[in-house]
């Protein structure tokens, strides 16, 4: 999952980024509204954490512009405590949730998970296909209720596929969401094949019934019941 954090306080940006990275999110940061919009319109994000007070272009303007362009990425607004008017304005402009400053990291993480679930029409924090359950909260994967030991990148890849169930995802797309910009997508698309192979082995899906190879395109998590 790829997240963009927009805040003019570099320390806070880095702090949030650090914790999200520990949670295996792919994180980018932006210090002002203009850079934020540039990134939003060119890179695929799964979620944006947006502060209201920003130089160049404030959070409302950024939000207004991206919703105006029809970008439906979930947005979590950060507001100073007690600004009821701001909260209302933000939600009216199309923010999906808000969080008071100062906030606890646990709450931020919970809200991010909730927003990701909501945007992918999930009801619980567990993503289940067949006999595989991915708990996005505890980051534990079980196969027939038995925990499976996955590497952080294997988990992220599986999580991304499960969130986008029944959609064929190209390797380059997966590379961007799971590894981010710094890596070469060509090298990473090879890397993805390796990860998928390992995942199938660990999840006893060598036949590729759940993690389906879509000829030429990439992969898809197929949920027959959906």
């Amino acid at each position, binding site marked *: 999952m790829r997240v963009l954090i927009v805040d003019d306080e570099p320390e806070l940006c880095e702090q949030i980024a650090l914790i999200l990275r520990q949670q295996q999110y792919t994180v980018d940061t932006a210090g002002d509204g203009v850079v934020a919009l540039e990134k939003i319109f*060119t890179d695929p994000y799964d979620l944006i954490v947006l502060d209201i007070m920003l130089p160049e272009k404030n959070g409302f303007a950024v939000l207004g512009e991206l919703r105006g362009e029809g970008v439906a990425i979930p947005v979590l607004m950060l507001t100073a405590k007690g600004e009821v008017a701001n909260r209302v304005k933000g939600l009216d402009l199309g923010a999906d949730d808000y969080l008071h400053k100062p906030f606890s990291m646990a709450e931020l993480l919970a809200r991010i998970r909730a927003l990701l679930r909501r945007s992918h029409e999930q009801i619980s924090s567990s993503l289940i296909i067949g006999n595989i359950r991915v708990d996005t909260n505890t980051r534990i994967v079980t196969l027939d209720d038995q925990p499976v030991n996955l*590497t952080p990148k294997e988990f992220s890849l599986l999580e991304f596929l499960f969130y986008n169930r029944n959609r064929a995802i190209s390797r380059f797309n997966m590379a961007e969401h799971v590894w981010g910009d710094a890596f070469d997508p060509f090298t990473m698309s090879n890397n993805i*094949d390796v990860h998928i192979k390992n995942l199938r082995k660990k999840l006893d899906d060598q036949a590729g019934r759940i993690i389906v190879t879509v000829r030429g395109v990439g992969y898809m998590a197929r949920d027959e019941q959906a």
Partner: protein
Amino acid sequence: MKIRNRITLWISLAGLASSAVLSLVVFFWGLETPYEFLDQELEIRAHTLTDELTREQAEGGPVARDLERFSHLYWARVYDAEGREIFASQMARKIALPMQPGDQGYLVRTTIPLGSFYSDEDDEPAAFWNRVFTVTVSGARYQAHVARPVESLVGESIESAIMIGCALLASVLTVVVVGYLVAGKILRPVQEINRLTAEITEKTLEKRIPLAGNRDEIDELAGSLNEMFNRLQYSFLRQKEFVANASHELKTPITLLRLSMEETLQDEHLPLPLQDQLLAQERALTRISQLVKSLLDLSRLELSEVLEKETFSLGELVASVVAEFQALMQDQHLTFTSQMAGACVIHADQEKVRRIVINLLDNAIRYNQPGGEIRCRIEPSTAGQGLIALRLANTGVGINPNDRARVFDQFYRCEKSRATAHGGSGLGLTIVKRIVELHGGSITVTSEAPNWTVFVVTLPLGRAS
């Protein structure tokens, strides 16, 4: 020939010419002058002698002793109007000298040593400077032939010529030395300008030559150079801005194109040939997208991006990047070994250093061979204090020695034909080099037989040291 030497030569030649003219004047003037003095002296002698003689004759007395003594330093003969000799000095009685009447003095050389006329013991042959005067005393005409022994003026003139020659030499030497110093002084501002201009490179285009403000030619030159640098810097910035803007403007349509392409590919009923075409297009588009991203990154780095430095462990950073590639390396049966001298804490821009490691490791994997090896080593640099060296060696195709210097160039690939097979934007190493330079470090690439390629990144430890 260097301008300094040329100026010295010109100054010296000018000095030599003027000194030579001066010397010639002095020399010839020095040759003439003694005779002029002699002439005057002899004339006075001739007159006084004749005066005295006529006074004595008038008094009817014999030639006085006074007169004898008075004239003992001179050769003198006085004739009356009828040509009879009325007086001969002591010297004149010893030696005869030819008489050549006229206004000019003349020299008569003898073989008699000079010492026989004077008390000094000079045995140089005597030469006489003669003058013949016609003197009229109270109506009577007399002819006075007066001469004086002179030292050999040839010897004198040789001596003086030598003297003048020495002086000339000394003066030329002085002119050469002074000329060299003066030339140096004249050229010092030029050298200063040269030094400063050499310091201004593509990377330091904002530097300027300080102006003295005295509006002289050198200052004007410096001013013109500065103007040129202004224009250069402007066009450089324009170019970089253009790349940045173009890349940015390209990103949006590429993203839109990719989204629609991916959406089309979701259609399971797409005919196979069409699907294959779309896949080829997606591949090409991803390449373009990667290229544009790299261009944007590079132009940001070129526009001297500020470093956000923090203190972190280089060892941990490398380990985390390696973890991202671990599965891929295992799949390709690559053996990775690393060797680190402790945590290797440095103070640098972590995200950018991460980029260095990612790009280098990506290369090491991409150009490797199945079953190959990658070795990583982090250690204090041998190049100097406060430096850390990250050494990444891999087996594989290796780099041709001719290509080695150029691998950091933009879009340079060692094997043109295999470029697409290996993927990549051709900008990875250029970005690496720029980040290393921004940190004040250096990067080298060497090949070690057989087929080993070694990249060594040297970075300053920064505040952490």
